[in-house]
């Protein structure tokens, strides 16, 4: 097949905070150091810059200060400076404030932002520097030259549901680059493939993930004043489950309300979406949301494993940045500044390597050294064992977190041993010894009133997600027989619960049994299914370009 090709010096895959920071840093280096102009391109699967951006979000501005020192004059949309920090421990019907805000959760000097707006702004700066930002183009696969990454192939368009070529067919483009910076986000499809091919995770701990579900609400003004940060622990989670809630006050009565659930729970019937509904029904939260309107919904996975789970960050011709590399501080609940910083450091190494005309793995190892010598390591290394300690439950986890603050994270066994989240899920027969729950209903349902609480399908509508309907499913389940037989028996089809977008349904097969139905066009690109499926037979691949959520204001 004839394909168009495009040659660039640096290709950045993913237009989030990491990718855009890399692009901007490259343009700055070019300006400062001169020389042959570099061609730089950014690929973004969303139809417009920022549309797939979702975060809490509280931004630590330290990387931004270095990247755009005059960010205030240039109109950075920073929402509200944090004024008040609150941390509560929730029980079913009451809350106890922490007497002291734990140091990692002190947010003075940080900003509550909409990541969607922030990245749109950053993308504007990048485009103003003459960098090409190609929106609506997902990277489908890596192009290799031996083991050297030589660029990417973008996804085909115009393929029908059953793989047939439609009249609108356009073949994907081969974009060849001297250095490819992967900023494809948490569980990025290219990073996942590259890590496997080059065994970049050898000797590292398994990544641990969490799923964040968030709604944007319009509330009567001053109910949650702009600049208010509330974090909760405890209810509706049990001692064995990791996670917590957040409420962040933005200007103009807009409020972010969300819940993060660790994707390392044991109970196969656990449902993060239902947990979020229970959280909103807690008196503390319900009181704040009363008479408000939910206007947006979204979900995203987070890499929470920390320092020991970060893979080797470079290969010949390739660098890994941001969430794709696992750069999140799970104790501070922050990653945007780390994404920006790693993007900037990757840009510096890519620039240096191209100028020296050496993009080998050995040359690009300078990126690894830059990360090791940066504030990314000084921030992540002391908390390297924190998330792992929660494998032993909430109380040991909290005790170890406190200990880390004084011990620098030291532990008898370092790295502390850990298991991938999907391996921790127990089988129904082991977890429910006193009686088998019905896999098609919720063990602990929340009342849905469509005011405060919503069913999954209604929520998905407010993610604004859209995909061309007539295309192959971009959620590839390698063996759907397992779903109706083994998985149904062993785990009760947990995909129908951990997916926050109603993609997976077990429907009547017409013969008294149930079969899997994949509602792929509901997908909000959170990657939870790829991460949490106990048999690891679900592969998330990018859908036709431009498909996905529309996270305006999120």
């Amino acid at each position, binding site marked *: 097949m004839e394909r168009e090709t495009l040659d660039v010096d640096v290709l950045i895959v993913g237009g989030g905070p990491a990718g855009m920071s890399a692009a901007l840093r490259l343009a700055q280096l070019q300006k400062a150091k001169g020389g042959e102009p570099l061609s730089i391109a950014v690929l973004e699967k969303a139809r417009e810059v920022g549309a797939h951006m979702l975060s809490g979000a509280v931004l630590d501005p330290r990387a931004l200060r270095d990247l755009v020192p005059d960010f205030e004059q240039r109109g950075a949309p920073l929402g509200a400076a944090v004024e008040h920090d609150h941390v509560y421990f929730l029980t079913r019907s009451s809350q106890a404030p922490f007497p002291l805000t734990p140091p990692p959760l002190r947010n003075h000097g940080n900003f509550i932002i909409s990541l969607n707006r922030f990245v749109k702004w950053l993308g504007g700066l990048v485009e103003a520097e003459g960098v090409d930002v190609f929106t609506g183009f997902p990277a489908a696969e890596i192009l290799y030259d031996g083991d050297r990454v030589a660029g990417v192939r973008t996804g085909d368009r115009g393929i029908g549901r059953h793989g047939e070529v439609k009249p*609108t067919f356009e073949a994907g483009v081969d974009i060849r680059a001297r250095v490819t910076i992967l900023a494809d986000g948490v569980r990025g499809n290219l990073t996942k493939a590259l890590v496997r091919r080059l065994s970049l995770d050898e000797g590292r701990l398994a990544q641990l993930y969490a799923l964040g579900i968030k709604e944007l609400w319009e509330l009567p003004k001053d109910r949650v004043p702009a600049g208010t940060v509330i974090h909760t622990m405890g209810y509706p989670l049990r001692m064995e489950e990791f996670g917590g809630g957040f409420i962040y006050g933005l200007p103009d009565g807009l409020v972010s309300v969300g819940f993060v659930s660790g994707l390392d729970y044991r109970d196969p019937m656990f449902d993060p979406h239902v947990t979020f509904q229970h959280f909103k029904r807690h008196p503390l939260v319900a009181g704040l949301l009363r008479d408000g309107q939910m*206007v947006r919904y979204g979900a995203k996975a987070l890499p929470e494993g920390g320092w020991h789970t970060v893979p080797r960050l470079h290969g010949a011709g390739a660098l890994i940045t941001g969430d794709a590399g696992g750069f999140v501080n799970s104790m501070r609940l922050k990653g945007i500044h780390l994404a920006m910083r790693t993007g900037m450091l990757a840009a510096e190494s890519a620039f240096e390597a191209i100028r020296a005309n050496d993009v080998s793995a050995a040359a690009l190892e300078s990126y690894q050294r830059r990360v090791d010598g940066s504030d990314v390591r000084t921030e992540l290394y002391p908390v390297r064992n924190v998330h792992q300690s929660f494998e032993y439950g909430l109380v040991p986890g909290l005790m170890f977190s406190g200990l880390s603050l004084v011990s620098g994270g030291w532990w008898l066994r370092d790295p502390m041993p850990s298991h991938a989240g999907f391996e921790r899920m127990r089988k129904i027969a082991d977890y429910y010894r006193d009686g088998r729950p019905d896999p098609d209903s919720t063990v602990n349902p929340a009342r849905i009133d469509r005011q405060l609480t919503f069913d999954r399908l209604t929520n998905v509508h407010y993610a604004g997600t859209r995909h061309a*309907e007539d295309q192959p499913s971009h959620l590839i389940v390698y063996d759907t027989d397992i779903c109706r037989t083994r998985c149904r028996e062993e785990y009760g089809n947990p995909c129908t619960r951990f997916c926050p977008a109603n993609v997976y349904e077990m429907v009547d097969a017409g013969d008294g049994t149930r079969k899997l*139905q994949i509602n792929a*066009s509901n997908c909000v690109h959170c990657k939870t299914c790829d991460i949490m499926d106990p048999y690891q037979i679900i592969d998330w691949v990018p859908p036709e370009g431009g498909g996905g959520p529309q996270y305006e204001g999120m």
Partner: protein
Amino acid sequence: MSVLVIAEQRGGTLNRATWETIAAAQQTGEALHIAVVGHGVDAVAAEVAAARCERVLVVDDAALAEYTADGFVLALSALIEQEQPGLVFLPHTYQTRDFAPALAARLKRALVTDVTAIRKDGDRFVYVRPMFQGKLSADVAAGGPPPHLVTCQIGAYRADSAARGDAPAAIGKAAIAVDAARIRQRPEAPFKEARQAVDLSQAARIVAVGRGIKAQENLKIAEQLAQAFGAEVAASRPICDAGWLPMDRQIGSSGQTVAPKLYVALGISGAIQHLVGMKGSRTIVAINKDADAPIFEVADYGIVGDLFEVVPAIVAELNRA
């Protein structure tokens, strides 16, 4: 001040949404002109001349026989500069969405899209349009010099509420020629799928089925009802996903948006994704086993019952009449 409505036609057939836009424009209380653009569109002009309006203007040019964005932008920008209307109203159809932004940019005028209501605020108009997938309605006032361009959401106004004149309005030809050499697009024959597709937005009555229909062979129950009503058969998403009906019969956020006179929902629970595609229907009848189904929140008539009993009874009654 005057309002110019741009009628939409394809192959000499008027798009019903034009009447909705005429109804919206009449509510402004301003003098109304209607433009028909195309080639060989006299019958369409005569049809819209029945509306209560000052006159109908025909822009007829062989270069406009088939729709192209360039052709329409050229013809309409010339017409608007010549006529100097105070406002321009268009139906919010796929075709309008294709050319209206370019037209507004060419004229350097404000464009307000997907409007559901209009009210007067002093000497200016305030337009209501949905935001956040219809969760919020924003009041929008257009800035800059007139004319402002306004597109009206399908189903927001009722076609049959457009006032008819006592006698047909005068039909005149606009002296506008389109330079075919400036049209960059070359339309080819419509895709096969597009040619076969039913345009449910044109149907006056629709019988829609949802998961409650249970099996493909039960669709004949819905077909019998549709036949008795003279209605088109449509469906909610799960039915089309299962391949029981083609995708072009899907109603909702990932299918078509419709506003027929009668919408009968059989075994449809009423997920918001479906409701946004049909809530503008004039009369909604819902038949569902589950009394708590959200479809009943938008239904004018609701029957809580088994559709396999209720529908045959209705069909029998209709056929007896």
